[in-house]
């Protein structure tokens, strides 16, 4: 099932509006909704945040489009607000971080499988192992700090296993850069995947950064610092996949196409009927925004928008467990060889990810199910 970007016009921008009550929808249920509902909400929020960042920079550099940017930005900001408020109040920052880690695994796994460019696929496969480890470390913190079972959030869809050890993936900045796709020859899927991956990494990075101070525990703060630094590495890496020769309007068009794709994918598989209605509505909103930008692009650059993105979107992202694929990568993926000086410097006083998760093995019901250490050793240095 796919969608034709050219023939589906969606809703015109002037009819895309909200009132304050509509911006605070009833959230999903942490207990009763499927884990992939959370994954969709977090991914879509990441896409909106990515668009907002881009549109902000675009406005700084292009006075000619500021009016159109302001109009689209306003609507996108309110979409983003609604998405943010779908997260329930009983979901703590650490629980949301676990949700982000799961989203980063399953969404990137889906994209890696569908990615036609082998070089890009390798980038996603490598990131998958880093994200798997991030989930493992966050889960260990949740279990050991609060005595809670992280699987109540993951719902057994995603393994809680050590991936590529976080302490070992700290790279010098130049090592995060990859060869970009060629805008003239890259498939639509490649362009969309790069944008989604970058958006997710940036949003996760910013979330960990902004919520780390909610912890009293300094070790939890350190872990969030370490994981957000890894996300910054990924954000740099994924952003470098996009062809830097793409014009501002080209990139804007791709962002809008990406959002259509995101909401369309979400609507295709959402199990919460109320939220599915929103995903369908926002697919129409994004189509309206896409056509506004398409018209602008074709008028200003005198080019066919089909040079940038194909009429028909790829198959939707698959919001499902990719356990077998991830385990296969875990077995087969070669180690990344990077310079050690930067890593040594960052780990100079120890690695919080190693300290927090030392010996952690996820057990149904939580680690407290395992035989307890003797109390006299708890806390003893």
């Amino acid at each position, binding site marked *: 099932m796919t969608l034709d970007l050219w023939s589906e016009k969606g809703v015109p921008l002037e009819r895309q509006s909200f009132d304050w009550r509509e911006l605070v929808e009833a959230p999903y249920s942490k207990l009763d909704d499927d884990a992939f509902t959370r994954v969709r909400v977090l991914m879509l929020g990441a896409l909106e945040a990515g668009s907002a960042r881009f549109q902000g920079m675009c406005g700084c550099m292009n006075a000619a489009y500021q009016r159109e940017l302001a109009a689209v930005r306003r609507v996108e900001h309110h979409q983003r607000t609604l998405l943010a408020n779908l997260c329930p109040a009983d979901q703590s920052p650490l629980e949301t971080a676990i949700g982000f880690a799961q989203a980063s695994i399953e969404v990137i796994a889906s994209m890696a499988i569908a990615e036609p460019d082998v070089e890009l696929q390798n980038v996603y496969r490598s990131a998958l192992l880093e994200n798997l480890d991030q989930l493992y470390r966050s889960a260990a913190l949740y279990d050991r700090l609060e005595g809670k079972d992280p699987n*109540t959030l993951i719902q057994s869809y995603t393994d809680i296993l050590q991936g590529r050890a976080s302490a070992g993936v700290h790279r010098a900045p130049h090592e995060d850069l990859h060869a970009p796709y060629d805008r003239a020859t890259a498939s639509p899927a490649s362009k969309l995947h790069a944008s989604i991956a970058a958006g997710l990494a940036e949003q996760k990075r910013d979330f960990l950064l902004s919520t780390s101070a909610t912890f*009293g525990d300094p070790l939890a703060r350190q872990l969030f610092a370490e994981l957000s630094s890894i996300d910054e590495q990924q954000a740099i890496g994924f952003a470098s996949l996009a062809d830097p020769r793409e014009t501002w309007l080209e990139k804007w068009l791709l962002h809008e196409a990406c959002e259509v794709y995101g909401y369309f994918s979400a609507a295709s598989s959402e199990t919460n009927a109320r939220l599915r209605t929103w995903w369908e509505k926002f697919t129409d909103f994004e189509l309206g925004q896409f056509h506004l930008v398409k018209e602008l692009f074709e008028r200003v650059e005198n080019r066919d928008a089909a040079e940038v993105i194909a009429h028909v979107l790829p198959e939707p992202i698959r919001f499902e467990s990719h356990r077998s694929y991830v385990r296969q990568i875990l077995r087969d993926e070669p180690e990344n060889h990077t310079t050690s000086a930067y890593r040594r410097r960052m780990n100079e006083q120890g690695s919080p990810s190693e300290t927090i998760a030392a010996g952690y093995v996820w057990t149904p019901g939580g680690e407290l199910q395992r035989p307890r250490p003797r109390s006299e050793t708890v806390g003893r240095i």
Partner: protein
Amino acid sequence: MSDDNEIKVGTNRTGIALARERTEAMIGDTEDLLTDQPADLSAGDKARVEFCASAEPLGSVAPPTCFKGLAKTSSLQSAGCRPRLFMDKLGERLAFEKSGTRLYEALLVKHDALGSFPGGPTREELEEILEEEAEHYRMLQSAIESLAGDPTALTPSADLAGVAARGLFAVLTDPRTSLLQCLETILVAEMTDNDGWETLVELSELAGERALRETFMQARADEADHLQRVRGWIAVGQGRTVRRVVRELPPMPAAPVSRTARIAASRARSTRKKTTKKKAARR
């Protein structure tokens, strides 16, 4: 031993006494807005009432894990117990005891870092409480499994208990807090725990689950002891005596009578009445 329990006088800037001039400047131009009339919060309250009225429940309890569980649910209902509430509260207690275990682990770390104070807890005393908390959650796991429940499932009350406890973890793991401040925070957990076990004792009685009830009563007694000890340490740490006594535990009620026995007793009473009437009629 540390003197971290002593609250020091310093540069606390949160009150207006240290910022008189700035405060007067703030008020100065707005003096005519100041009033001694009560604030009208009704608009906000009305809006919140509307949100509450249209909100969906937080979540549900998981279904029984097997057919035996369905039969168990039915028999609990017949006994006058609300099985979903019972399972919800069992899940809550389980989650709380696991959190309590981690809270006491954090308290041990605090004790190791700062030491105790005269009359305060020894490490061994904290370890003892920690082990009892751990034993309680193991017992609750078995209890839930015996009722064909899933001890790994998060019940609504367990979820809410987790929300309420977030502040407790923030205090216990903040390196800036003293042992006394952590004990005062753990007091909140112990008070909640005591009432929680009282609830389970009564619910298990309603359910006719005698063996569970007795186990819960032992846990309740353990928690009453924890509460008393924590209160005592806090009082000593604050330089006062504990005036309140731990609430007297209610006398142990008579063993619950099974439904079959109640029906048999009722029939026996009815037969005796009929026999008495017949005898009276013959006279």
